[in-house]
């Protein structure tokens, strides 16, 4: 077999991350439906190419912020899936010691500023981080991942204006999966949607098929290069689809079977498409199968570790509230 091209090797590595995200999300969903994980879980299945394609162009010192559907972004930025799974299980050595749970995963050591339970708030916070980059004269960029549900929140409009007037190194990534929770975004959005709104602030960007990993990767590479060169903010508008309901408490019965089947088919699914591309590049089926089984094994071990890990001591509920005036 001829040696892989640089691009094929890069895509193979990205496939590995996508596969880990998918296995993580399916396992998290099972654990939520099965009652092992409290609260609800918002699965990222079907949208993996966006987190992975974007984060492949970031450095550990760059910042990302996320939303309620944040597991994929965290893993793509480099967070440890085992610590994350422990967090979902509410365990003491989870990423946030069991205080955050699924919707509040964060890993500041790799620039992951947090998933966020309030729609659009991750984006405004990332803009603040971008402003800190400017104040501290650092060579970094900040990226916000948000869904199409966020585009009708006022603070996101404030954030777009803000990033532009201060010319911040800020990338807005809108993951358009068509739904704001259970409502069709198109039914509640006037005008030209996110892209028209971003452009009306003078922010340039690209529209991509968010299920096309190579397209996301290439577009992000171009936009981030412009950000790093001091070109001001940019956007990436990525069309995609979530295979599962809004969260594990949502029936998802507002979507037609036909719609779901169309989007989960091999010609739409971002992992199946990436695999097809790699096979065409000469990557062997065995290698692909190896990546799949490695991801499965990793997540199985994460679940086993999460189940076995100790719960936090109740006293931990009272730490890290604040330095002075802490609970007594």
């Amino acid at each position, binding site marked *: 077999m001829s040696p892989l091209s640089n691009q094929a090797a890069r895509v193979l590595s990205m496939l590995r991350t996508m596969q880990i995200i998918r296995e993580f999300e399916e396992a998290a969903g099972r654990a939520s439906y099965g009652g092992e994980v409290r609260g609800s879980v918002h699965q990222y299945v079907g949208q993996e190419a966006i987190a992975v394609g974007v984060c492949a162009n970031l450095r550990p010192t760059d*910042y990302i*912020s996320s939303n309620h559907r944040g597991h994929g972004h965290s893993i793509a930025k480099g967070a440890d899936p085992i610590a994350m799974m422990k967090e979902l299980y509410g365990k003491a050595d989870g*990423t*946030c*010691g069991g*205080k*955050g749970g699924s919707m*509040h995963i*964060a*890993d*500041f*050591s790799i620039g992951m*500023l*947090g998933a*966020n*339970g*309030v729609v659009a*708030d991750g984006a*405004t*916070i*990332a*803009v*603040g*981080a*971008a*402003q*800190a*980059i*400017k*104040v*501290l004269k650092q060579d970094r960029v*900040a990226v916000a991942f948000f869904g199409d549900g966020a585009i009708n929140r*006022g*603070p996101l409009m*404030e*954030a777009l*204006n*803000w990033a532009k*007037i*201060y010319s911040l190194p800020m990338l807005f990534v809108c993951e358009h999966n068509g739904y704001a929770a259970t409502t069709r975004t198109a039914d509640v959005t006037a005008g030209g949607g996110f892209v028209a709104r971003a452009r009306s602030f003078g922010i340039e960007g690209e529209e991509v098929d968010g299920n096309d990993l190579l397209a996301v990767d290439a577009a992000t590479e171009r936009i981030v290069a412009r950000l790093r060169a001091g070109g001001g903010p940019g956007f990436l508008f990525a069309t995609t689809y979530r295979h599962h309901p809004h969260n594990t408490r949502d029936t998802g019965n507002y979507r037609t079977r036909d719609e779901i089947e169309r989007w989960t088919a091999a010609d739409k699914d971002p992992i199946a498409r990436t695999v097809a591309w790699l096979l065409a590049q000469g990557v062997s089926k065995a290698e692909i199968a190896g990546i799949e089984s490695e991801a499965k094994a990793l997540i199985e071990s994460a679940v086993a570790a999460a189940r076995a890990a100790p719960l936090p001591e109740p006293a931990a509920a009272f*730490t*890290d*509230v*604040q*330095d*002075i*005036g802490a*609970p007594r």
Partner: protein
Amino acid sequence: MTMELTYAEAARLALDQEMERDPRVWALGEDLGPEGGLAGQYKGLQAKFGPDRIVDTPISESMIMAAGVGAAVAGTRPVVELRFADFAMCAADETVNQAAKIRYMFNGQARVPLVARQAVGMRGGTAAQHSQSTEAWWVHIPGLVVAMPATPRDNHGLLRAAIRCDDPVIYLEHKALWNIKGPVDPDAEPVALGKADRVTRGDDLTLVTWSGMRLECAKAAEALAKQGIGVELIDLRTLWPWDRDMVLDSVARTGRLLIAQEAVKIGGFGAEIAAEAAEALWDKLRAPIRRLGAPRTPVPFSLPLEDACRVTPEQIVSTATEMVASRS
């Protein structure tokens, strides 16, 4: 060397000194540059430190606060100017759901060292949306520190302490105090957050207050002294955490506690002090605890209407006199 400064000038000096001391300190908000803030409390600082450290912003309260949050977790120490406390409600989500909770939700991975400055109180005819005293709202939120300086010295000392604090500080300056003068020692140590100021000593009654009401209470204490009633006047300076030790020690000695606040009495912070004192000292009380505060009405515009909502020195004197007359 001590100098005579206004309350606004004292705050300006404090920010100037902290920005000199620490390059991570910066300020953002509406009308800070040429205008120098509502009361000149930022006057000349943009010329000195440049537009990237004294940042004029659009009227975008959500984004102003979120920028502070994002920039705080990304290594800076922002001073967030929200002008009127009434307008800070436009940034309540960013304050309550983000600034106050990030350290906790993420298990101490990040701190949010920001100061959110908001002008409170009646200044004479600014009516319902520019006159509120909102301190109790913020005290209720775990994670926040709440400071309310009443003198030029304390505005200088507390603002520096707030900027050096690693947790978010809600910093409430009273509009009626901007132009009052008092001694300020530029070289004094910052005023410790959580420590009250014993304004007068007395054995007959403990009078607890904060912010603009300190002036009314001082007048009342003077009048009461002429009647032979010794008032121990305590200005809390910080509401969360409040100086429980100083207040309870005083009440244990005087046996009488009167709390005077400008804010609405119902559900106000005075109720918390009264409850704590009653729980801890019921057997030492020589009269029922009393509270004075505004009626539960919006602040009206016309002078007689506004006056009807004010706590006056006369009311404080008559209430204190009644309490001492009921001497057991």
